[in-house]
């Protein structure tokens, strides 16, 4: 721990040198209130007890310089004529850019001081920090309450909404805090004072910037308002820099970084930056906000470009663009036109979409004409056909069962798909291409008064399906390759 203290010492020594230097200069700088403590950083390692080790902004040269200039400029009033051809040379322009940076720093400083006050006041009234969130309000309330234990004697009217005052009074009656020591109380009140001062300073800076924005970038301020315009310009690093940016970048200027890993991004908002604070944006309904933001960024980039070349110093372009934006957003919010019933299509004008595929083919097979039926439909020339009732009555059998045809039994035809599947298995039942019952024989009694035998090898297939080749044997293989 000793070495740690030593290293901190070494750091702080540098600081203390600076501050000693500043102390001399401070006397020369006019009308900025200085802290009563006004002393050098402590030698001890980051002593949290003392306000100044935490909050150093008001000591810095930069801060005081800028505040000085702002005060002067505000007192001087508006100065329209003095703008030269090049904007960047104008000292007021530079001041504006500095002011922007400063207001950011002031905000950080306020937060730091707020933490400080909170930690000190926790001993007295721990629940207050969860009831009053805003740092400046918190500082005001702390200052008002002081070391008082009984809140009925404290008048918080005007500082907070009455609902919150009520909650505070109730909580104070049951609080677990104890009154602070005199020294602690003094430090806390000082910190509150400092926070309030910073707040006032920030307001001054913003007022100044707003009043000047109208002269530096009239078109841009016409669209988004001077405060947002000043912020944009400050973050971009100047009006020309802002003008050179594409609109998508302008949209993201000032956007907070994504939430840390571990926190859910489900509720994280889409990326908007300072434009979020623009009046137009706030007044659009939430569902249209993304589109509005994109539109706003695009038009404000155009306005910034006009301003950077000083094309229109009256701000008319800006106002026109603002009108355009307003009209577009209104148009988006229009309800859609009423739907008219659609007329029916002309009959038979759209040909039916026929489907194909394996499923359809299998379905069609159930109704396809079988080989047996095909044979029955045909007749041989000059040969009377047999019929079911005999003598020409009843259903005719056509070529079925005629003598001389190769087949004696017409078996159930195999579907083409099954044939394809069967080809995969090389075993083809000997002689018959379909399922035959076990009781069939190769003998048949034909009307020729004889017995006809059929050669099971013969391809007496009268029909011969188109897909089966008549040249190449289905069962034969290459003669030289051994069959396994």
């Amino acid at each position, binding site marked *: 721990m000793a070495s740690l203290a030593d290293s901190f010492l070494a750091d702080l020594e540098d600081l203390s040198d600076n501050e000693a230097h500043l102390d001399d200069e401070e006397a020369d700088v006019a009308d900025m209130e200085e802290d009563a403590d006004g002393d050098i950083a402590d030698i001890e390692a980051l002593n949290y007890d003392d306000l100044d080790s935490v909050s150093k902004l008001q000591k810095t040269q930069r801060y005081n310089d800028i505040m000085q200039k702002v005060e002067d400029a505000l007192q001087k009033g508006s100065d329209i004529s003095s703008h030269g051809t090049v904007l960047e040379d104008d000292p007021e322009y530079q001041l504006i850019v500095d002011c922007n940076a400063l207001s950011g720093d002031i905000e950080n400083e306020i937060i730091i001081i707020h933490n400080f006050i909170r930690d000190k006041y926790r001993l007295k009234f721990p629940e207050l920090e969860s009831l009053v969130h805003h740092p400046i309000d918190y500082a005001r309330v702390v200052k008002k309450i002081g070391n008082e234990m009984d809140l009925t004697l404290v008048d918080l009217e005007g500082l907070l909404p009455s609902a919150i005052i009520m909650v505070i009074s109730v909580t104070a009656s049951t609080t677990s805090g104890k009154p602070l020591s005199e020294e602690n109380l003094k430090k806390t009140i000082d910190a509150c004072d400092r926070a309030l001062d910073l707040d006032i300073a920030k307001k001054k800076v913003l007022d100044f910037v707003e009043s000047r924005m109208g002269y530096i970038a009239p078109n841009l301020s016409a669209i988004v308002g001077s405060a947002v315009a000043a912020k944009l310009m400050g973050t971009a690093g100047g009006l020309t820099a802002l003008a050179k940016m594409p609109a998508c970048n302008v949209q993201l200027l000032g956007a907070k970084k994504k939430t840390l890993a571990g926190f859910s991004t489900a509720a994280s908002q889409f990326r908007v930056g300072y434009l979020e604070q623009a009046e137009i944006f706030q007044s659009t309904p939430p569902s249209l906000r993304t589109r509005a933001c994109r539109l706003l960024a695009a038009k404000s980039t155009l306005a910034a470009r006009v301003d950077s070349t000083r094309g229109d110093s009256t701000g008319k372009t800006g106002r026109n663009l603002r009108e355009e934006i307003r009209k577009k957003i209104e148009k988006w919010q229009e309800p859609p036109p009423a739907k008219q019933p659609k*007329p029916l299509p002309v009959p038979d004008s759209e040909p039916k979409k026929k489907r194909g595929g394996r499923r359809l083919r299998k379905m069609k097979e159930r109704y396809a004409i079988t080989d047996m039926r095909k044979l029955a439909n045909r007749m041989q020339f000059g040969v009377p056909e047999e019929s079911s009732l005999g003598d020409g009555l009843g259903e005719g059998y056509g070529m079925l069962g005629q003598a001389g045809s190769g087949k004696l039994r017409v078996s159930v035809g195999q579907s083409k798909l099954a044939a394809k599947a069967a080809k995969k298995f090389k075993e083809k039942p000997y002689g018959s291409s379909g399922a035959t019952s076990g009781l069939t024989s190769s003998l048949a009694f034909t009307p020729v008064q004889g017995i006809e035998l059929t050669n099971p090898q013969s391809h007496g297939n009268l029909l011969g399906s188109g897909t089966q080749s008549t040249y190449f044997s289905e069962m034969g293989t290459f003669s030289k390759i051994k069959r396994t």
Partner: protein
Amino acid sequence: MSSYLLPTLSRKREVDGIIRDTVDKVLVLRFGRCSDAACLQLDDILSKSSREISKFATIALVDIDAEEIQVYVNYFDITLIPSTIFFFNAHHMKMDSGTADHTKWIGSFHSKQDFIDVVETIFRGAMKGKLIVSCPLPPERIPRFQLLFKDL
């Protein structure tokens, strides 16, 4: 009264014109009076379906009380109202609905869909080149009228 949606014709010129000018669409001409109850019912169905069948049919109302229209009344032998006559490309389309008179449809329809079915059948038949089609409606939906001949 929704007959402001459907054109009402009272002159012979207009009727001629509309028969000539309707190209490749069925022309439905309703002959009747706009004050008659059955006519009103039919008119209601006609006007509700006019937009839906607008791609293949046109509908118009003809007022039989006009003098110029009497020519048509005599030609088509219109005695009962409302009578609906169908044309396609200036050909008179006949429909066999089981009644005695095939040249026109007498009375109203039970529903909008019935009317649309009839018009579609006429269209299909006409596109095939037929001049007479058979009615797709089942007989209970076809209004039957008894023709009283001189108070017999």
